[in-house]
């Protein structure tokens, strides 16, 4: 190789056709493919979907006679939406005009914060959803009395020596408690697993970029 890299660069760009800008049509309406914009869009859509679902479910829960489930769902999902709306506001603050390291770091920090908060929240979200279903059906009207009490009555007919605590069979309490603990333990993992399916490639790429820049900084 005779020419230096610098000369190839300079001489190559002296030719008139080298730097012809592509035509830009209707840029204002272009759908951005930038990852932060994509995140913002997906986040907004997700949040709106959660709000719509929680409203719809609240109405349905009253119609089908499990309002407790609907109310707990609505409150829990509203908290989730408020938390994530605040996270979205933080994302809006990231300035793209800062250095690449600061920019990637800010974005990475935002992702880590978002994952950490939602992971913690998921530990409670799944058990709460399960418990709301249990309570909803327990108190559902079944011919003038709560479905749960009716069920206990039928159990006592078949198994009269069933041990009760506050009128609830101990075995039922144990089963519900075990499921709650399991959901608490795996809630975070379910969220992480779900997240990795969607954003795994992005996380890996960001990690590689950060490692590379950090090696330059050290």
């Amino acid at each position, binding site marked *: *190789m*005779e*020419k230096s*890299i*610098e000369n*190839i*660069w300079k*001489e*190559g*760009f002296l*030719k008139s*056709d*080298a*730097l*012809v*800008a*592509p035509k*830009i049509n209707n*840029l*204002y309406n*272009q759908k*951005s*493919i*930038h*990852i*932060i914009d*994509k995140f913002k869009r997906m986040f907004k859509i997700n949040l709106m979907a959660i709000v719509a679902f929680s409203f719809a479910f609240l109405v349905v829960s009253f119609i089908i006679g499990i309002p407790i489930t609907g109310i707990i769902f609505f409150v829990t999902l509203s908290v989730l939406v408020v938390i994530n709306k605040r996270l979205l506001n933080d994302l809006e603050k990231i*300035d*793209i*005009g*800062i*250095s*690449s*390291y*600061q*920019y*990637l*770091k800010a*974005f990475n920090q935002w992702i880590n914060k978002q994952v950490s908060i939602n992971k913690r929240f998921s530990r409670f979200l799944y058990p709460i959803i399960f418990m709301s279903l249990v309570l909803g059906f327990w108190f559902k009207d079944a011919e003038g009395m709560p479905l749960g009490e009716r069920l206990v009555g039928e159990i006592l007919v078949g198994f009269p020596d069933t041990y009760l605590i506050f009128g609830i069979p101990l075995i039922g309490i144990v089963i519900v408690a075990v499921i709650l603990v399991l959901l608490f333990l795996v809630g975070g993992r379910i969220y992480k697993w779900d997240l990795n399916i969607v954003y795994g*490639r*992005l996380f890996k*790429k*960001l990690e*590689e*970029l950060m490692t*590379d*820049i950090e090696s*330059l*900084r*050290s």
Partner: protein
Amino acid sequence: MSSDFYNTSILPFAGIIIKLCRAYTSSQQDFEDYYQEVCLQIWRSKDNFREESQWSTWVYRISLNVCLTLLKKKKNNVQHFVSDSITAEETENNYAFSDESLNLLYDAIRKLSEIDRAVIMLYLEEKSQKEIAEIIGTNPNNIGVRVKRIKTRLKKLLDGKIN
């Protein structure tokens, strides 16, 4: 975006954007997408420009940050790093410029890691080590060493291809 803003604030720096976007894309379609995206982000972020640096440096930063974080779902994305075989897209991009040596140089640059691409592009644009470090956000002392290493790699990749 107004055409005035594009003509006065982006078009004079289109060269910078084109050079960077070419290094991060391997097809004409991707290049045009990246170029549009950079322009869009410059326009969206224009109010954040505080004149602490030159407009051109700021354009570099945005172009680079957009290129580093643009995600395109593509098949065989890692092919460039594991194989020297020429894909259809590479072939297409090999003819992006009329200068054959420049096409070969770009082809070699695309085989580097994303950060190394940024470092060498800024170096070739005659940015000082301090400016390169400021744009990327690294330590200026390490830039010189990294540039040398990248140039050695590029020379190896271009060896025998350019007379």
